């Protein structure tokens, strides 16, 4: 996990005091995975960019009242993943409209990757736990806390999601 421990606390303290370089160090450390996590849940690069960007803007707004005893990463990732799930759910409601149209050249160019295509077949909730576990490397217990879910639900979503992914990739 990027930027953990004492260095992260020190950077947060400096960023709160107005150090652009420390704020940039935090941004550079956390942006790639925040962006990637959002993308793997929503499968839309423009939306993923906005979701990750919005999470950082929320972090900036809350910088002065952020609890220094808590790590920055989980707090940021909670915002990213929850917003990505909301966006993907809303997007799913719109999918029917696209069926009527001829496939446009730019319709879904981002799903060439087999892993991504398999992930796209899962529900946003299943995608989110898999991304939290296998990209951001949280434990099931930590995921349960981040998403406000019972640990058993996280485990079952992980199991079902991975089974479904394995079937999709084998096909």
């Amino acid at each position, binding site marked *: 996990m990027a930027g953990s421990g004492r260095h992260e606390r020190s950077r947060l303290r400096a960023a709160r005091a107005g150090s*652009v370089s420390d704020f940039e160090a935090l941004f550079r450390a956390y942006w790639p995975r925040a962006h990637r996590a959002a993308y793997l849940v929503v499968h839309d690069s423009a*939306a993923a960019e906005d979701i990750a960007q919005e999470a950082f803007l929320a972090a900036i707004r809350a910088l002065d009242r952020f609890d220094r005893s808590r790590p920055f990463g989980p707090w940021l990732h909670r915002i990213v993943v929850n917003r990505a799930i909301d966006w993907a759910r809303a997007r799913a409601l*719109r999918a029917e409209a*696209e069926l009527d149209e001829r496939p446009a050249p730019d319709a879904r160019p981002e799903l060439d990757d087999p892993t991504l295509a398999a992930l796209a077949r899962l529900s946003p909730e299943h995608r989110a736990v898999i991304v939290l576990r296998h990209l951001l490397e949280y434990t099931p217990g930590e995921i349960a806390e981040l998403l406000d879910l019972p640990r058993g639900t996280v485990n079952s979503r992980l199991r079902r999601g991975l089974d479904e992914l394995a079937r999709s990739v084998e096909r």
Partner: protein
Amino acid sequence: MRLDDVRIPDEDAAEDRAWHVARAAYESRAPAPHARRVPVRALVLAGAILAVAAAAASPPGRAVLSSVRKAIGEEHAARALTRLPTGGRLIVESSSGPWLVSEDGSKRLLGDFVDAAWSPHGLYVVATQADAVAAVDPGGRVRWSLARPSVRFARWGGSRTDTRIAYLARRRLRVVAGDGTGDRPACGSPTAAAVAPTWRPGPVHLLAYADAHGRISVVDTDTCSVSWRSSPIAGLRSLEWSDDGRRLLAVSRSGLTLFGVAAAHPLSVRPLARVAAAAFDPRSHRIGIVRGREVLLLDGDHLGRRPRRVFAGAGGFSDLAWSPDGRWLLVAWAGADQWLFLRPDGGGRVRAVGSIAEQFGGGRFPKLGGWCCPAQ
């Protein structure tokens, strides 16, 4: 499972854009260093001197802004519009109705309509009368029309094969398919502000509109799912998506507000008084602005940066339109009864055309309705 290997389109540029937005937000909240108090008048004077110096010193500024015009109008303006400087066709809204101007300068009065806008690929025009909305081809033939009370602000969006038109009837938002079928109130028939709604480019029918409280909503009109709804913005005047659908620009009496696709919270806000019109460059997030006596360019990904002034003149500018290739900026100079074709990236002189009101049937100075795609 190797989620780290999945490629995200435009990944590095996205990080760069996000960093500039985040940095601007961070710097606007960072504690300011203690400074001695400086008289406000001195600051204003120094700012004005710096702004003029910066505009004149930048190479593109020098290319276009030869001087701040003290007289109203360009001295060597052509007396008639003989051609557009690049491809595409232009809608011009005059007292006698909307005109279509072709690349060779020929003009056609569409008919007895008030307001007109292009279909997504420029094949048709949607036009309104007081009590009707109509689809018209560029030859002026009405393909269909629909009688509705107090119609305004019809706007056309969608893919080449499935389009929608949004419009206001008695200030209620309605939607009709591009072939004139299925007219219905849009998603609860909200009362809308007197601002044209705007479709996000692309196949999903995602519409941004302003309600009577000045809140902007982005809604899928097929499913009525709301992507987001903003806080109220006072004095909202226009809404426009960037061509890539990633940014929504709201122009209000207090300035510019930029939204993304996914969230109701603005990505950035730029206070700027007296903006008459603003529009995205079709190739990027660059924004052209006409404001009082000046024409400005602002980087939409870095709204906090100083705008670049590309032209200034007495009498006031009223409107602007980008050419479809983004190489020309047409500015309506109502005070001089002229149009100016500017090269925002420098190179080439300003092309001015005079007697604009007379060329479009006399009466009031016409409005620019949109510069669209080449003839198809």
